[in-house]
């Protein structure tokens, strides 16, 4: 990972590509070197498995979580809390933005697009998992990437390879994903910024040449 993160880091991508896990881990990572870190959950699409599930961990680390007042509840309405404006406007706070899947989810980001562009201190990373059924190829991923840019009025600045098959992931799968991410990089002209992997893969020899970002995942109860 870059040692000089931008003030605002945005994770977008196809739904189910792993944005929330990466955003939570990235915010915790930032907090090790920065005083004021906030994670903003702009997901207006996904009813389950939200940043809110990591509230305890984020609180303990001193990362501020701002999410819909209704996340995890029975209210299924696409609302963003007004409090999101504060860290976006406060140039001393490092912000991590977790955006809902696909172009539908990215619409919510459009609300802040002008502000973010005007400040010009952001990274917007396309999270890709080439083992997802609708983004198996670089070409399919590129379509989603362009749809998202159109919906949120912000251009991407980089790509994250988060290729995995859940519990069935092997190192070769991650490398195959990295290969496809490089194809996507060539097609889109965007740099491959990092490969995110479950933490037990972080020291794998075969991944030594990849820029690996380890992910600590929540324990599964079922």
């Amino acid at each position, binding site marked *: 990972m870059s040692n000089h993160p931008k003030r605002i880091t945005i994770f977008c991508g196809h739904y*189910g590509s792993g944005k929330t896990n990466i955003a939570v881990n990235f915010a915790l990572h930032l907090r090790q070197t920065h005083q004021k870190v906030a994670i903003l959950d702009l997901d207006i699409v996904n*009813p*389950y*498995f939200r940043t809110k599930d990591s509230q305890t961990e984020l609180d303990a680390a001193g990362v501020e979580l701002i999410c819909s007042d209704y996340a995890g509840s029975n209210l299924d309405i696409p609302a963003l809390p007004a409090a999101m404006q504060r860290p976006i406007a406060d140039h001393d706070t490092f912000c991590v933005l977790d955006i809902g899947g696909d172009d539908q989810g990215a619409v919510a980001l459009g609300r802040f697009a002008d502000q973010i562009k005007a400040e010009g201190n952001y990274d917007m990373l396309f999270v890709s998992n080439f*083992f997802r*059924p*609708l983004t198996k190829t670089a070409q399919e991923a590129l379509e989603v990437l362009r749809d998202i840019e159109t919906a949120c009025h912000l251009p991407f600045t980089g790509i994250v390879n988060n290729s995995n098959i859940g519990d069935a992931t092997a190192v070769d799968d991650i490398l195959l994903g990295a290969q496809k991410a490089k194809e996507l990089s060539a097609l889109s002209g965007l740099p491959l910024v990092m490969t995110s992997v479950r933490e037990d893969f972080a020291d794998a020899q075969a991944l030594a040449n990849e820029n690996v970002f380890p992910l600590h995942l929540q324990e599964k109860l*079922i």
Partner: protein
Amino acid sequence: MSEKVLMKGNEAIAEAAILAGCRHYFGYPITPQTEIAAYMAKKMPKIGGCFLQAESEIAAINMVYGVAGAGKRVMTSSSSPGISLKSEGLSYLAGSDLPALVVNVQRGGPGLGGIQPSQSDYFQATKGGGHGDYKMIVLAPSSVQEMASLTVKGFDLADKYRMTAMILADGTTGQMMEPVNLSEVEVQHYEKPWAVTGTKMERPHNIVNSLFLEPEELEKNNFARFERYKQIEENEVMVEEYLMDDAELCVVAFGIAARVSKNAINEARKKGIKVGLIRPITLWPFPKKTLLAAAEHVKQFISVELNMGQMVEDIELATRCKRPVTLCNRTGGMIPSPAQVLAAIEEADKGGQA
């Protein structure tokens, strides 16, 4: 490179339906099953299929009726309140002996309820839901892989017996992501000489209808239909037994509740408690024989459900109340924890009935 992909349960249903030859999907969005419609909307136009978002659930189920009558594989999906709206159509499908696949990714109820997972439509799915004497084949997946395999199975059984098959899933199995291997899918094909496809002046008219002017004729059809149901109860029961050989206690659970229960059973076994699991995969036909046989050697049944206790009644009937049946449950969108199920097992082990 494995052939596995990482899928949400809802996506697995949609992709498996396409693999099973379904080219017609009609639905109306509702959380937590919207990914099925979204997936179909993306994929169907690319493979010459038809995705149509109807103006309501009632319209969607009647479109299903039309395509089923024409002899094509067709599906719709919804979540609890939407299935209530479709129930009139389900009864019409049954009365006309039409095959279709209907998916219910359940959420908390009654009423508008909530968007979190539940199993509180067990009665509705297994006892009818709509009006009149009829059954549906009800399949209860407990993994994303099973969301795919049971979808294919559902289409096959529906065609084989000319009736509706329902996937009774819950919000969590719909939303969670797991590796899926779709190359293992095997599809059966059934002739449909009864379908309304145009006679070309070469055969008598086929009629698809649920209205009968003579009560004698309606009765005859109902008796014939229930003869078919008997065959299904004889031949199509699917059930998983886990650590039941030496079990003195038996947890009964389906879908997501079975996954939680397995974790609890593994913990209980570590403590030396002889407990096993019977997991009905078909909720109708219900695995009555398996349960009755278990009643010979277990001292108590524990039904784990995400509702106020519905399957518990079928367990009592199947076991003819030979052993006590207790309930371990959460409702309203909540899921029992492995610790809660373990406590229920320990309580039963002490001899106390909760």
